[in-house]
Protein backbone atom coordinates (compact mmCIF):
# COMPACT_ATOMS: atom_id res chain seq x y z
CA UNK A 1 0.00 0.00 0.00
CA UNK A 2 1.36 3.44 -0.86
CA UNK A 3 2.41 5.59 2.09
CA UNK A 4 -0.01 8.42 1.21
CA UNK A 5 -2.96 6.01 0.96
CA UNK A 6 -1.95 4.32 4.23
CA UNK A 7 -1.75 7.73 5.90
CA UNK A 8 -5.19 8.70 4.52
CA UNK A 9 -6.75 5.47 5.86
CA UNK A 10 -5.13 5.90 9.28
CA UNK A 11 -6.34 9.52 9.49
CA UNK A 12 -9.89 8.47 8.47
CA UNK A 13 -9.87 5.60 10.97
CA UNK A 14 -8.70 7.94 13.76
CA UNK A 15 -11.40 10.44 12.74
CA UNK A 16 -14.11 7.77 12.98
CA UNK A 17 -12.75 6.60 16.34
CA UNK A 18 -12.94 10.22 17.54
CA UNK A 19 -16.58 10.49 16.37
CA UNK A 20 -17.44 7.23 18.19
CA UNK A 21 -15.76 8.35 21.42
CA UNK A 22 -17.65 11.66 21.25
CA UNK A 23 -20.93 9.75 20.73
CA UNK A 24 -20.21 7.54 23.75
CA UNK A 25 -19.36 10.62 25.85
CA UNK A 26 -22.74 12.18 24.94
CA UNK A 27 -24.46 8.84 25.67
CA UNK A 28 -25.58 8.53 22.04
CA UNK A 29 -23.85 5.15 21.73
CA UNK A 30 -23.39 2.37 24.28
CA UNK A 31 -19.94 1.09 25.24
CA UNK A 32 -20.30 -2.46 23.83
CA UNK A 33 -21.21 -1.14 20.37
CA UNK A 34 -18.44 1.48 20.61
CA UNK A 35 -15.89 -1.25 21.38
CA UNK A 36 -17.02 -3.09 18.22
CA UNK A 37 -16.56 -0.01 16.02
CA UNK A 38 -13.26 1.07 17.59
CA UNK A 39 -11.86 -2.45 17.09
CA UNK A 40 -13.02 -2.36 13.45
CA UNK A 41 -11.43 1.02 12.66
CA UNK A 42 -8.27 0.24 14.63
CA UNK A 43 -7.95 -2.99 12.62
CA UNK A 44 -8.39 -1.04 9.40
CA UNK A 45 -5.65 1.40 10.44
CA UNK A 46 -3.23 -1.39 11.39
CA UNK A 47 -3.98 -3.17 8.10
CA UNK A 48 -3.22 0.03 6.18
CA UNK A 49 0.15 0.38 7.93
CA UNK A 50 1.22 -3.26 7.67
CA UNK A 51 -0.11 -4.26 4.25
CA UNK A 52 2.65 -3.71 1.71
CA UNK A 53 1.95 -3.69 -2.02
CA UNK A 54 3.70 -7.06 -2.39
CA UNK A 55 1.58 -8.49 0.39
CA UNK A 56 -1.65 -7.28 -1.28
CA UNK A 57 -0.53 -8.65 -4.68
CA UNK A 58 0.31 -12.00 -3.10
CA UNK A 59 -3.00 -12.10 -1.23
CA UNK A 60 -4.92 -11.26 -4.43
CA UNK A 61 -3.06 -13.98 -6.32
CA UNK A 62 -3.89 -16.51 -3.60
CA UNK A 63 -7.56 -15.51 -3.78
CA UNK A 64 -7.55 -15.82 -7.57
CA UNK A 65 -8.08 -12.11 -8.10
CA UNK A 66 -6.48 -10.85 -11.35
CA UNK A 67 -6.71 -7.14 -10.56
CA UNK A 68 -5.18 -6.77 -7.10
CA UNK A 69 -6.98 -3.53 -6.02
CA UNK A 70 -10.29 -5.48 -6.33
CA UNK A 71 -9.18 -7.23 -3.15
CA UNK A 72 -9.87 -4.01 -1.23
CA UNK A 73 -13.46 -3.97 -2.51
CA UNK A 74 -13.92 -7.62 -1.63
CA UNK A 75 -12.57 -7.07 1.90
CA UNK A 76 -14.76 -3.97 2.26
CA UNK A 77 -17.90 -5.87 1.21
CA UNK A 78 -17.07 -8.76 3.56
CA UNK A 79 -16.61 -6.34 6.48
CA UNK A 80 -19.91 -4.52 5.65
CA UNK A 81 -21.79 -7.84 5.43
CA UNK A 82 -20.27 -8.91 8.75
CA UNK A 83 -21.43 -5.64 10.31
CA UNK A 84 -24.94 -6.18 8.89
CA UNK A 85 -25.13 -9.68 10.37
CA UNK A 86 -23.88 -8.34 13.72
CA UNK A 87 -26.61 -5.68 13.77
CA UNK A 88 -29.27 -8.17 12.67
CA UNK A 89 -28.36 -10.24 15.73
CA UNK A 90 -28.47 -7.15 17.95
CA UNK A 91 -31.85 -6.17 16.44
CA UNK A 92 -33.26 -9.65 17.07
CA UNK A 93 -32.11 -9.52 20.70
CA UNK A 94 -33.78 -6.13 21.12
CA UNK A 95 -36.97 -7.40 19.44
CA UNK A 96 -37.12 -10.28 21.89
CA UNK A 97 -36.73 -7.88 24.80
CA UNK A 98 -39.36 -5.50 23.38
CA UNK A 99 -41.73 -8.43 22.82
CA UNK A 100 -41.46 -9.44 26.48
CA UNK A 101 -41.96 -5.85 27.64
CA UNK A 102 -44.98 -5.35 25.37
CA UNK A 103 -46.54 -8.53 26.73
CA UNK A 104 -45.92 -7.41 30.31
CA UNK A 105 -47.48 -4.01 29.55
CA UNK A 106 -50.55 -5.72 28.05
CA UNK A 107 -50.95 -8.03 31.06
CA UNK A 108 -50.51 -5.18 33.57
CA UNK A 109 -52.97 -2.96 31.63
CA UNK A 110 -55.39 -5.89 31.71
CA UNK A 111 -55.06 -6.02 35.48
CA UNK A 112 -55.79 -2.26 35.66
CA UNK A 113 -58.86 -2.74 33.42
CA UNK A 114 -60.06 -5.59 35.66
CA UNK A 115 -59.76 -3.36 38.72
CA UNK A 116 -61.69 -0.59 36.95
CA UNK A 117 -64.35 -3.06 35.85
CA UNK A 118 -64.76 -4.24 39.41
CA UNK A 119 -65.71 -0.62 40.24
CA UNK A 120 -68.28 -0.51 37.44
CA UNK A 121 -68.57 -0.29 33.62
CA UNK A 122 -68.18 3.52 33.60
CA UNK A 123 -64.76 3.22 35.23
CA UNK A 124 -63.78 0.43 32.83
CA UNK A 125 -64.11 2.71 29.81
CA UNK A 126 -62.52 5.75 31.43
CA UNK A 127 -59.13 4.99 29.93
CA UNK A 128 -60.63 4.92 26.41
CA UNK A 129 -62.33 8.30 26.79
CA UNK A 130 -59.17 10.11 27.93
Amino acid at each position, binding site marked *: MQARLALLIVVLALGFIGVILAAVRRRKMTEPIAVFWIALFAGLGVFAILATRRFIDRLAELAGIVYAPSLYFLLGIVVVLGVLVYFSVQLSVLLRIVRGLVQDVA*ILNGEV*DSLRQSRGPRDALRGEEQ
Partner: protein
Amino acid sequence: MSGVAGSKPETLVIVPAYNEAASIDAVLDELRPHAAAFDVVVVDDGSSDDTRVRVLRRGARVLSLPANMGNGVAVQTGLKYALRRGYAFAAQFDADGQHLAKELLKILAISRDGTCDVVVGSRFLAGESFRPPPARLAAIRLFSRLLRLLSGVTVRDCTSGLRAFNRRAIELLALDYPDHFPDADVLLVLALAGCRIREVPVTMRARVAGRSKTNLTRSVYYPFRVSLGMLMALLRTRG
Protein backbone atom coordinates in the same frame (compact mmCIF):
# COMPACT_ATOMS: atom_id res chain seq x y z
CA MET B 1 -66.77 -12.71 31.35
CA SER B 2 -65.85 -15.20 34.00
CA GLY B 3 -67.06 -18.17 35.91
CA VAL B 4 -69.53 -18.52 38.69
CA ALA B 5 -68.81 -16.20 41.61
CA GLY B 6 -66.65 -17.87 44.23
CA SER B 7 -65.48 -20.73 41.98
CA LYS B 8 -62.77 -19.67 39.60
CA PRO B 9 -62.74 -21.74 36.40
CA GLU B 10 -59.50 -23.62 35.82
CA THR B 11 -59.59 -22.91 32.08
CA LEU B 12 -58.76 -19.74 30.18
CA VAL B 13 -59.94 -19.22 26.61
CA ILE B 14 -57.59 -16.92 24.70
CA VAL B 15 -59.08 -14.94 21.80
CA PRO B 16 -56.34 -13.19 19.80
CA ALA B 17 -57.89 -10.29 17.87
CA TYR B 18 -56.54 -7.84 15.33
CA ASN B 19 -59.05 -5.41 13.83
CA GLU B 20 -61.98 -7.74 14.51
CA ALA B 21 -64.48 -5.10 15.65
CA ALA B 22 -67.04 -6.43 13.16
CA SER B 23 -67.00 -9.95 14.59
CA ILE B 24 -65.83 -9.71 18.21
CA ASP B 25 -69.33 -9.08 19.60
CA ALA B 26 -70.63 -12.25 17.95
CA VAL B 27 -67.65 -14.24 19.24
CA LEU B 28 -68.18 -13.04 22.81
CA ASP B 29 -71.91 -13.83 22.47
CA GLU B 30 -70.94 -17.32 21.35
CA LEU B 31 -68.78 -17.83 24.44
CA ARG B 32 -70.95 -16.05 27.04
CA PRO B 33 -73.40 -18.95 27.72
CA HIS B 34 -70.44 -21.08 28.84
CA ALA B 35 -69.00 -18.53 31.29
CA ALA B 36 -69.21 -21.08 34.12
CA ALA B 37 -66.91 -23.46 32.26
CA PHE B 38 -64.08 -21.08 31.45
CA ASP B 39 -62.76 -17.53 31.69
CA VAL B 40 -62.25 -15.59 28.48
CA VAL B 41 -59.50 -13.11 27.69
CA VAL B 42 -59.31 -11.21 24.42
CA VAL B 43 -55.77 -10.26 23.41
CA ASP B 44 -56.07 -7.15 21.27
CA ASP B 45 -53.05 -7.18 18.96
CA GLY B 46 -52.75 -3.40 18.55
CA SER B 47 -56.00 -3.04 16.60
CA SER B 48 -56.62 0.31 14.90
CA ASP B 49 -60.40 -0.17 15.06
CA ASP B 50 -62.53 -0.26 18.23
CA THR B 51 -62.06 -3.97 19.03
CA ARG B 52 -60.77 -3.12 22.52
CA VAL B 53 -63.65 -0.75 23.34
CA ARG B 54 -66.23 -3.29 22.20
CA VAL B 55 -64.69 -5.97 24.43
CA LEU B 56 -64.62 -3.63 27.43
CA ARG B 57 -68.23 -2.55 26.83
CA ARG B 58 -69.25 -6.19 27.10
CA GLY B 59 -67.45 -6.48 30.40
CA ALA B 60 -64.97 -9.03 29.07
CA ARG B 61 -61.31 -9.09 29.96
CA VAL B 62 -58.91 -7.63 27.41
CA LEU B 63 -55.12 -7.54 27.21
CA SER B 64 -54.07 -4.79 24.80
CA LEU B 65 -50.71 -5.02 23.10
CA PRO B 66 -49.44 -1.45 22.50
CA ALA B 67 -48.54 -2.27 18.88
CA ASN B 68 -49.42 -4.90 16.28
CA MET B 69 -46.96 -7.68 17.15
CA GLY B 70 -48.38 -10.65 15.27
CA ASN B 71 -50.70 -13.51 16.16
CA GLY B 72 -47.96 -15.51 17.89
CA VAL B 73 -47.12 -12.73 20.34
CA ALA B 74 -50.84 -12.26 21.04
CA VAL B 75 -51.42 -15.95 21.80
CA GLN B 76 -48.26 -16.15 23.91
CA THR B 77 -49.42 -13.11 25.90
CA GLY B 78 -52.61 -15.00 26.71
CA LEU B 79 -50.59 -18.08 27.70
CA LYS B 80 -48.33 -16.02 29.97
CA TYR B 81 -51.45 -14.54 31.55
CA ALA B 82 -52.86 -18.05 32.05
CA LEU B 83 -49.58 -19.14 33.66
CA ARG B 84 -49.44 -16.15 36.02
CA ARG B 85 -53.09 -16.57 37.00
CA GLY B 86 -52.63 -20.27 37.68
CA TYR B 87 -55.00 -21.71 35.09
CA ALA B 88 -54.64 -25.46 34.56
CA PHE B 89 -55.86 -25.36 30.93
CA ALA B 90 -55.91 -22.83 28.13
CA ALA B 91 -57.55 -22.84 24.73
CA GLN B 92 -57.12 -20.74 21.64
CA PHE B 93 -60.28 -19.47 19.92
CA ASP B 94 -60.32 -17.28 16.78
CA ALA B 95 -61.88 -13.82 16.88
CA ASP B 96 -63.20 -13.97 13.31
CA GLY B 97 -66.19 -16.11 14.24
CA GLN B 98 -65.04 -19.32 12.52
CA HIS B 99 -64.92 -21.37 15.71
CA LEU B 100 -67.95 -22.81 17.48
CA ALA B 101 -68.32 -22.87 21.27
CA LYS B 102 -69.64 -26.46 21.21
CA GLU B 103 -66.42 -27.59 19.49
CA LEU B 104 -64.36 -25.65 22.03
CA LEU B 105 -66.15 -27.49 24.84
CA LYS B 106 -65.41 -30.76 23.06
CA ILE B 107 -61.66 -30.19 22.84
CA LEU B 108 -61.57 -28.86 26.42
CA ALA B 109 -63.30 -32.01 27.69
CA ILE B 110 -60.64 -34.14 25.97
CA SER B 111 -57.88 -31.93 27.34
CA ARG B 112 -59.24 -32.28 30.88
CA ASP B 113 -59.40 -36.08 30.75
CA GLY B 114 -55.60 -36.15 31.03
CA THR B 115 -54.88 -38.45 28.09
CA CYS B 116 -53.00 -35.78 26.17
CA ASP B 117 -51.24 -32.43 26.62
CA VAL B 118 -52.47 -30.70 23.47
CA VAL B 119 -55.73 -31.07 21.56
CA VAL B 120 -56.04 -29.76 18.01
CA GLY B 121 -59.45 -29.27 16.41
CA SER B 122 -59.22 -30.68 12.89
CA ARG B 123 -61.37 -29.66 9.91
CA PHE B 124 -60.02 -32.57 7.87
CA LEU B 125 -61.25 -35.28 10.23
CA ALA B 126 -64.79 -33.97 10.49
CA GLY B 127 -65.92 -35.77 7.36
CA GLU B 128 -66.98 -32.51 5.80
CA SER B 129 -65.75 -31.11 2.54
CA PHE B 130 -63.23 -28.65 3.97
CA ARG B 131 -61.54 -27.23 0.89
CA PRO B 132 -59.00 -24.50 1.59
CA PRO B 133 -57.53 -22.60 -1.40
CA PRO B 134 -54.99 -24.78 -3.30
CA ALA B 135 -51.93 -22.83 -2.10
CA ARG B 136 -53.10 -23.07 1.50
CA LEU B 137 -53.88 -26.77 1.13
CA ALA B 138 -50.39 -27.39 -0.29
CA ALA B 139 -48.84 -25.53 2.66
CA ILE B 140 -50.92 -27.51 5.19
CA ARG B 141 -49.85 -30.81 3.58
CA LEU B 142 -46.21 -29.72 3.52
CA PHE B 143 -46.25 -28.79 7.22
CA SER B 144 -48.11 -31.95 8.16
CA ARG B 145 -45.49 -34.09 6.38
CA LEU B 146 -42.62 -32.11 7.90
CA LEU B 147 -44.15 -32.54 11.35
CA ARG B 148 -44.48 -36.30 10.86
CA LEU B 149 -40.94 -36.54 9.48
CA LEU B 150 -39.31 -34.52 12.25
CA SER B 151 -41.31 -35.73 15.24
CA GLY B 152 -43.26 -38.80 14.21
CA VAL B 153 -46.51 -37.05 15.19
CA THR B 154 -49.35 -36.94 12.68
CA VAL B 155 -51.60 -33.90 12.69
CA ARG B 156 -53.50 -33.41 9.46
CA ASP B 157 -54.86 -29.95 10.21
CA CYS B 158 -51.69 -28.49 11.65
CA THR B 159 -52.74 -24.88 10.92
CA SER B 160 -55.99 -25.09 12.89
CA GLY B 161 -56.37 -22.22 15.36
CA LEU B 162 -58.69 -24.19 17.65
CA ARG B 163 -56.35 -25.74 20.20
CA ALA B 164 -56.37 -26.63 23.88
CA PHE B 165 -53.33 -26.92 26.14
CA ASN B 166 -52.78 -28.35 29.60
CA ARG B 167 -50.50 -26.77 32.19
CA ARG B 168 -47.37 -28.50 30.87
CA ALA B 169 -47.95 -27.18 27.35
CA ILE B 170 -48.81 -23.71 28.69
CA GLU B 171 -45.51 -23.59 30.57
CA LEU B 172 -43.54 -24.65 27.47
CA LEU B 173 -45.23 -22.18 25.13
CA ALA B 174 -45.07 -19.27 27.58
CA LEU B 175 -41.28 -19.63 27.30
CA ASP B 176 -40.98 -20.21 23.55
CA TYR B 177 -43.56 -19.29 20.92
CA PRO B 178 -43.05 -18.29 17.26
CA ASP B 179 -43.81 -14.64 16.43
CA HIS B 180 -45.79 -14.44 13.24
CA PHE B 181 -47.32 -17.57 11.77
CA PRO B 182 -47.53 -19.93 14.71
CA ASP B 183 -48.85 -23.10 13.15
CA ALA B 184 -47.04 -26.38 12.70
CA ASP B 185 -43.87 -25.06 14.34
CA VAL B 186 -45.76 -24.70 17.63
CA LEU B 187 -46.86 -28.32 17.39
CA LEU B 188 -43.30 -29.39 16.59
CA VAL B 189 -41.93 -27.55 19.64
CA LEU B 190 -44.51 -29.37 21.77
CA ALA B 191 -43.95 -32.76 20.13
CA LEU B 192 -40.17 -32.53 20.51
CA ALA B 193 -40.64 -31.68 24.19
CA GLY B 194 -42.51 -34.96 24.58
CA CYS B 195 -46.04 -33.55 24.74
CA ARG B 196 -48.84 -35.88 23.69
CA ILE B 197 -50.80 -34.28 20.84
CA ARG B 198 -54.26 -35.44 19.85
CA GLU B 199 -56.25 -34.32 16.83
CA VAL B 200 -60.04 -34.44 17.01
CA PRO B 201 -62.66 -33.68 14.37
CA VAL B 202 -64.39 -30.31 14.62
CA THR B 203 -66.65 -28.30 12.37
CA MET B 204 -66.03 -24.64 11.67
CA ARG B 205 -67.96 -22.02 9.77
CA ALA B 206 -66.96 -19.19 7.46
CA ARG B 207 -65.73 -16.04 9.20
CA VAL B 208 -68.56 -13.85 10.51
CA ALA B 209 -67.19 -10.59 9.11
CA GLY B 210 -64.07 -8.96 7.72
CA ARG B 211 -61.48 -10.46 5.43
CA SER B 212 -58.66 -12.91 5.89
CA LYS B 213 -55.29 -11.21 6.50
CA THR B 214 -53.65 -13.47 3.93
CA ASN B 215 -52.25 -11.71 0.85
CA LEU B 216 -49.82 -12.61 -1.93
CA THR B 217 -46.69 -11.59 0.00
CA ARG B 218 -47.82 -13.52 3.06
CA SER B 219 -48.72 -16.54 0.94
CA VAL B 220 -45.18 -16.69 -0.47
CA TYR B 221 -43.42 -15.87 2.81
CA TYR B 222 -45.59 -18.09 5.02
CA PRO B 223 -44.40 -21.60 3.95
CA PHE B 224 -40.74 -20.53 4.10
CA ARG B 225 -41.16 -18.92 7.50
CA VAL B 226 -42.95 -21.91 9.05
CA SER B 227 -40.59 -24.48 7.46
CA LEU B 228 -37.57 -22.54 8.76
CA GLY B 229 -39.23 -22.31 12.17
CA MET B 230 -39.70 -26.09 12.20
CA LEU B 231 -36.10 -26.73 11.20
CA MET B 232 -34.83 -24.37 13.91
CA ALA B 233 -37.09 -26.00 16.52
CA LEU B 234 -35.51 -29.34 15.64
CA LEU B 235 -31.94 -27.98 15.76
CA ARG B 236 -32.56 -26.32 19.14
CA THR B 237 -33.78 -29.59 20.57
CA ARG B 238 -30.79 -31.47 19.21
CA GLY B 239 -28.37 -28.74 20.33
